[in-house]
């Protein structure tokens, strides 16, 4: 448990690399930064922002409300709770992500 915030240790999630201790050659902190950057491409379209906070993340909504997110497994539930329901198969979302790449 973290002595400062009282949060339990970050639980394992497949998105953190599973049996392979590290999914890429990057150190975990760098990989978390990459995941936050990848998430923000999508979240920004719904007015949300994900920041790395120690070994986890903080998700902030458009009104400033924030939720601590352990890993990608809890990110989307947190986004739902902030009123941003994201569907990866939504044509509008896909189209904006495609525009973003060009």
């Amino acid at each position, binding site marked *: 448990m973290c002595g400062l915030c009282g949060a339990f240790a970050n639980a*394992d999630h*497949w*998105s953190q*690399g*599973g*049996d*392979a201790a590290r*999914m*890429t*050659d*990057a150190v975990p902190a760098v*990989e978390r930064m*990459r*995941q936050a*950057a*990848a*998430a923000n491409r*999508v979240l920004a379209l719904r007015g949300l922002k994900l920041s790395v906070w120690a070994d986890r993340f903080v998700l902030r909504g458009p009104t400033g409300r924030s939720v601590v997110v352990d890993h*990608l*497994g809890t*990110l*989307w*539930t947190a986004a739902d709770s902030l009123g941003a329901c*994201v*569907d*990866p*198969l939504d*044509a509008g*979302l*896909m*189209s904006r*992500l*495609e525009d973003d*790449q*060009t």
Partner: protein
Amino acid sequence: MTRDLITASVLTGFLGAGKTTLLNRLLSGPDLADTAVIINEFGDIGLDHLLVESVDGDIVLLKSGCVCCTVRGDLKDAVLALFERRARGDIPAFRRLVIETTGLADPAPIIATLAADLMLKYHFAIGNVVTAIDVPNGLHNLEAFEEAGRQVALADRIVLTKADLASGQDLEALRLAVEAINPAAIITTTIVTTGRDSRDKGQARSSEVAALLTQDIHDLASRPAEARRWVAAARHGDHVHATPDRNRHGDIRAMSLTIDRPIAWARFSLWLSLMVHRHGTRILRLKGILDIEGVGSPVVVHGVRHLIHPPFHLADWPCDRASLLVLITDGDLGDIQRSLRAFVGAQAEVRASVPART
């Protein structure tokens, strides 16, 4: 794995598919001595000749070392009760659990039960889903009963049983139908072996039956061969079932996506986490071998509905270096190919070998 997890496998198959025969071989052979089996009814599988001791009303010990237990009511309670008796030392410390479903069961809720409960999740890892389907009636059952299709769709291993009771044509027709529903499953064939005369044959097969359960993604030694087999099965499926209507069975659809360039793990994991969050109840199976940026070796991902197993590396590529993702879905979810491309980046050309939308 950091904890010593018990592997929970699921044995399913439609009424009359030959689950009982498979179970009998499983319970009588020495290969699964450290296994507990949850069945529907003791009477169904004729355990008397294997019985050593009755622990209490619904648990018995068998000669082979197996623990056998019937479900009375809720599966979660049955698994937890078995685990508690194991912890107390009332029954041997089994390392493996096999859950037999009823013939009419959709195995997905069973997997969901194991994956969703915090305590079960802590102690059990989900192993293979083994589906028995009999050659004489399999095609009819697939046509007539939605559950039969879902049992095939969720399988890691499919056993075509009673092959000697039907023609070679029937066997091939069933194999094609099964491959169309689940291009990533490994298919084996068995014949009927009943009576004393065939006991030797049956004994020899007990190790093969055991391998259906022991050779899974948690078994480090068999991982490379396992990946090679399912990748080959998926590629073969792409080749054989290139016509649009072959990959559909009722509402079940299979598709495989190929990406020729390395993909970023951060982007792929984001996409997959969102897909299973939003559409997990309709993603029956997912298997992938991935070429990840910054990683020389292939990365394997497996999933059933909302559950994604911890990914792992293989030492070598079992196929040409490219990412291959096989998805079996319940109904048409939408343009998955476009979604993956939009999330992982414009450079990654995503090809659907078997189109999901027809």
